[in-house]
């Protein structure tokens, strides 16, 4: 994987997007995810009502890959039910691990497909999955 593929337009765009970077007024769950090896630090806030994710905020600071991945995730899970979010999370992680490779099966990840080949750059895998792991933990807290 070369740098052009890693820092693709879509990844750069999401890493600089500010849509989900505002703290929520009434978060019902908060969770922090850190990547101790490189210093990524993500603070996820969710407002969950009736098992549905009403609002998402991604705070904290991370590298371009972790921030882009978090931005993509926020866009995907906003408005989804907790169960749907879990399914997406499992799918994203399976894609990264190359357990699911069929484009058809990955369609629901939308822009998340941009991270499909990150496993070719092992040093950055943790960055790509950080926000998703943080989400899983947050959803478990909620449950």
């Amino acid at each position: 994987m070369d740098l052009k593929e890693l820092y693709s337009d879509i990844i750069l765009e999401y890493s600089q997007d500010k849509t989900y970077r505002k703290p929520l007024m009434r978060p019902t769950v908060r969770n922090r995810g850190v990547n101790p090896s490189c210093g990524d630090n993500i603070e996820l806030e969710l407002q969950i009502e009736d098992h549905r994710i009403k609002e998402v905020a991604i705070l904290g600071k991370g590298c371009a890959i972790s921030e882009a991945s978090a931005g993509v995730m926020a866009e995907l899970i906003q408005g989804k039910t907790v169960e749907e979010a879990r399914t997406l999370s499992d799918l994203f992680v399976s894609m990264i691990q190359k357990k699911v490779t069929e484009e058809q099966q990955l369609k629901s990840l939308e822009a998340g497909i941009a991270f499909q080949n990150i496993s070719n750059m092992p040093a950055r895998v943790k960055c790509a999955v950080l926000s998703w792991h943080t989400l899983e933990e947050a959803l478990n807290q909620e449950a």
Partner: protein
Amino acid sequence: MSRVVNPYRKDFPLFQAEDQKELALAYLDNAATTQKPYVTLLAEQLYYESKNANPHRGAYDLSVEATMLLEETRDMVKHFFTVPKEGEIIFTKGATESLNLLAYSYGLTHLKQGDEILLPISEHHSNLVPWQMVAKQTGCKLVYLNLNEEANISLEEVKGKLSNKTKLVTLAQVSNVTGSIYPVAEIIRLAHEKGAIVIVDGTQAVPHLQVDITELNPDFYVCSGHKLYGPMGVGILYGKMDLLNQMSPFLYGGDMIEYVEDFSATYAPVPQKFEAGTQNMGSIAGLRGALTYLEEKNRNQLFQYEEELSNYLLEQLKKVPHVQLVGNKTGNNRIGVVPFLVEDVHPHDVVTILNQDRIAIRAGHHCAQPLHRHLDVLATCRVSLSFYNTKEEIDRLCESLKGVRRWFGYGSERTI
């Protein structure tokens, strides 16, 4: 491509192979671990090939030879660090284990509620988290020394925080994040005046400074072999005999006992009391090789060259637009460990981009999260030098850094 002649690179198999390549790896992460010279590797191999037996456990010649090698290496370490007669060297797995040994076998038994441990905010997690554990278990308190503008510790700061409650002062001789050389000799003197015990973490100091433990007079001193051109898996703990004698063992088992009854045991004398179980003899033999290598060089010449490289690195980094040095921005009181930031780009991304140009540096909090909070940065990039590095590598680093911001759509030139 042109190669700058560096007389040390040929001593290291990794560089010998790299220097054959079109673009050699610029290894600039020496604070994490150093590369190993042939001498180290051969010493380790030779041990397993011709001297391998369990030391202390056999009456036959081979075991005696292994035991001799262990003890000769201990003597060599003592000589290398000018250890006083009333002190002893204990082999551990590394600096982390040495510090944990002290936390468990000294901290837990000698500290109590109301006592204070004084330590810099910049300490490596291995000299911080064990003391948090001691504080939690004994009720003693951690008191932090803050850094000044030059990312160093002023004696005023030390005097202001030392008190009759201070029972232990523990600090790095050189910070692994900022490269600052702390005034440990003066701090030891001040601490001793108050009756406190001092632990010095020399992990980043021993590869780049001459360390004379007799003169420095710490109560304990620790370091890791793998950052001193030795193998991974061996570390050193120096302690004053009277303190080591008072302390209880850290690990219990074979090799550290005298008599074992059904329900009790008496322990072997220091140093065996602290060396339970079979030691990592291959690594100990390798460490001996590393020390031999260093003793055969003119170390002052190595240090001088490292200082020259370090000054060159600082000078050149300052010329790269949008690069900000963190901590001490001068060459004073520091070694060639240099943290910096590239504006608008996270350190992890900087490292990935440099990696593409075959330049290896580190990004993150370098096992010092409290310091990064104190400096108000989440993470930094860090270059750390050794005598096998070259100015050419530093030039390559700076060239590569100039291109980093372009990947994110920012200009790489100065904006003013």
